């Protein structure tokens, strides 16, 4: 097979690749179970241990954990697929997104770490509850966190499914078609349940090693095999300039954003960046760091991942030059398969297996972290707050484990019901929702000027606007709702990311309602934090909470 002739695709099982994939998968699952013993705690029967790894992770483990969160099936499957199908505006914005991310978290994450350390907060909803004494606002933040996590986990499942499908598992009938999905789901559920956050932390090392290996090989080897970068960019430019299949009046996509797309590109990047560290899982990973400055030091070394992400995005264009035909086992084209298919066509089978494993594990780790974080949130901020306030630590850990399963099950529902043709939309849809909690969390780290009901009103309006607007985006190719994440920004007549528009509306509503309520002198609740809490570090004592409002201090041990 020469480089420019696409291989026969989607035909049958690739035995060698599948075997390598399964072996690596078994290895990782074994590590997941072993992880319970790593940095062993006295008891796993508490949320602090199961869900935060005992809050003992230093710079490197935190780096791997955050990387495990951020660079996922989104990076490996969804972004290259978007580059392949629609070009730079839909895909390459992920590069500026993951660059501006770090200055953004640098600014506020240390404060959140400090106040969480002092008061034992595990979730952003804990913080909001403590800051405003408001169960309602805390509930809004928790529900949004859990809801927004589901499509993000769904994206990971789509990634694993893509790999298994290209490896030849599954089939064309309805049951066999989703079989790979259910296998992936079951594996994930099993080891997350037993080991909590330690499992993904341990596996993250293997995952990153595999991913770097595959990326380096892919980036060095594939471009030469398809005729060099010059040819790759030419092929991409040609494809993007061709009339679109769905709407021949428009080009297929964007090679480089034109001046009508600047807003779309910038708002996608900034909206995603502001949203990412509002997800429960990103916050969980940040809070599991062992000191205030771990996060900031990390913020300056994490961009290494952004570089890798950019290279992976370009694989979508490498696939254009290689003439990859991502066709599913049901015989229909499916852009999500493009990277696994490229690997299968171009690599020797055994290495294709390694690459498949890298992608699958790279989706599994974040999916585990996400479901654990969503479970933490449910347990602390919904179960304990609203359902069973007398719950013991063991109760909490038990409920947390169960909810991590339920969240994954809902993610499965997202995969089975929503439009999968552009999986990147799963992440963007999650972003629309989660960004609406930003004012309640981040603004509140700095000020209590905003009124709790103002924040709640802003959140509600942002959520409703974002959901309705996203629902009304219909994919022209499939006719399904939630078909994209760009819509007209009211008042400037430019397309932009819905999340950011909803965010601005959210803030405007919050400001107006705050002005009114402050004028009416409505109570803004009791604040249990003090200014010094926002600057606390690892050695500082924690605030012990009693049932009375009396506050006293204990020694610094958790």
């Amino acid at each position: 097979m020469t480089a420019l002739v696409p291989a026969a695709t989607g035909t049958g099982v690739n035995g060698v690749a599948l075997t390598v994939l399964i072996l690596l998968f078994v290895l990782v699952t074994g590590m997941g179970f072993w992880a319970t013993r790593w940095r062993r705690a006295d008891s796993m029967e508490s949320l602090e241990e199961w869900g935060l790894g005992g809050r003992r992770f230093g710079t490197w483990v935190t780096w791997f954990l955050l990387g495990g969160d951020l660079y996922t099936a989104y990076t490996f499957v969804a972004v290259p697929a978007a580059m392949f199908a629609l070009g730079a505006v839909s895909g390459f914005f992920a590069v500026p997104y993951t660059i501006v991310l770090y200055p953004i978290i640098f600014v506020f994450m240390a404060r959140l770490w400090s106040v969480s350390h002092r008061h034992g907060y595990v979730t952003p909803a804990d913080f909001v509850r403590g800051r405003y004494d408001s169960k309602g606002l805390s509930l809004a933040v928790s529900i949004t966190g859990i809801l927004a996590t589901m499509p993000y986990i769904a994206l990971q499942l789509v990634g694993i499914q893509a790999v298994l499908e290209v490896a030849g598992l599954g089939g064309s009938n309805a049951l066999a078609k989703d079989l790979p999905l259910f296998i992936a789901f079951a594996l994930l559920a099993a080891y997350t349940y037993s080991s909590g956050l330690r499992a993904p932390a341990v596996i993250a090392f293997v995952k990153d090693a595999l991913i770097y290996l595959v990326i380096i090989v892919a980036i060095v080897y594939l471009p030469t095999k398809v005729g060099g970068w010059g040819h790759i960019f030419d092929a991409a430019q040609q494809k993007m300039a061709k009339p679109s299949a769905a709407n021949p009046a428009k080009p297929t996509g964007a090679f480089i954003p034109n001046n009508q797309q600047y807003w779309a590109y910038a708002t996608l990047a900034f909206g995603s960046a502001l949203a990412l560290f509002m997800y429960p899982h990103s916050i969980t990973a940040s809070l599991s760091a062992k000191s205030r400055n771990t996060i900031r030091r990390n913020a300056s070394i994490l961009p290494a991942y952004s570089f890798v992400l950019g290279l992976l995005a370009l694989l979508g264009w490498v696939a254009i030059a290689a003439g990859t035909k991502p066709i599913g086992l049901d015989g229909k084209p499916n852009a999500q398969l493009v990277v696994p298919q490229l690997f299968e066509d171009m690599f020797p089978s055994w290495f294709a297996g390694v690459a498949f494993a890298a992608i699958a594990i790279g989706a599994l780790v974040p999916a585990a972290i996400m479901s654990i974080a969503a479970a933490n949130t449910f347990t602390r901020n919904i179960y304990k707050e609203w359902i069973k306030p007398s719950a013991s630590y063991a109760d909490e850990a038990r409920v947390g484990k169960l909810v991590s399963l339920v969240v994954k099950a809902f993610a499965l529902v997202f995969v089975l019901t929503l439009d999968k043709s552009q999986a990147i939309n799963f992440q963007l849809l999650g972003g629309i929702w989660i960004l609406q909690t930003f004012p309640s969390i981040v603004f509140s780290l700095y000020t209590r000027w905003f009124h709790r009901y103002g924040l709640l009103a802003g959140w509600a309006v942002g959520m409703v606007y974002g959901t309705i607007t996203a629902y009304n985006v219909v994919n022209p190719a499939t006719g399904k709702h939630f078909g994209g994440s760009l819509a007209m920004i009211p008042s400037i007549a430019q397309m932009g990311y819905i999340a950011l528009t909803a965010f601005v509306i959210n803030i405007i509503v919050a400001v107006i309602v705050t002005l009114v309520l402050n004028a009416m002198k409505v109570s803004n609740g009791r604040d249990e934090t003090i200014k010094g809490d926002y600057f606390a570090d690892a050695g500082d004592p924690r605030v012990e909470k009693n049932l009375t409002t009396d506050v006293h201090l204990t020694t610094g041990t958790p």
Partner: protein
Amino acid sequence: MSTDNAVDHDTVPPANKGMLVAAGVLLAIPMIALAWVGSYSKETPKLGAFPFFIWYQFLWVFLCSFMTYGAYRLVKAARPHRPMTGDMTTRPDGEVDR
């Protein structure tokens, strides 16, 4: 706002404002540069086969990393940690709004 009463922890620990502002500027530069899409949305000058649009953004990965590290050093030096020792005053009960 800082206070000379070191025991009261319901205050912001003192910091070198100039260094904090410098850190803020370092953090703002990459954001402004990347938000200004019009400044880099073009094909030339190419770097090898890479269009300007692509390599310029890759360049910012490194620039941003350096700037964030610079900001980290500045912030760390600007506000030395003020330990929250046991003799701190607790928040008076009944205080509601600030």
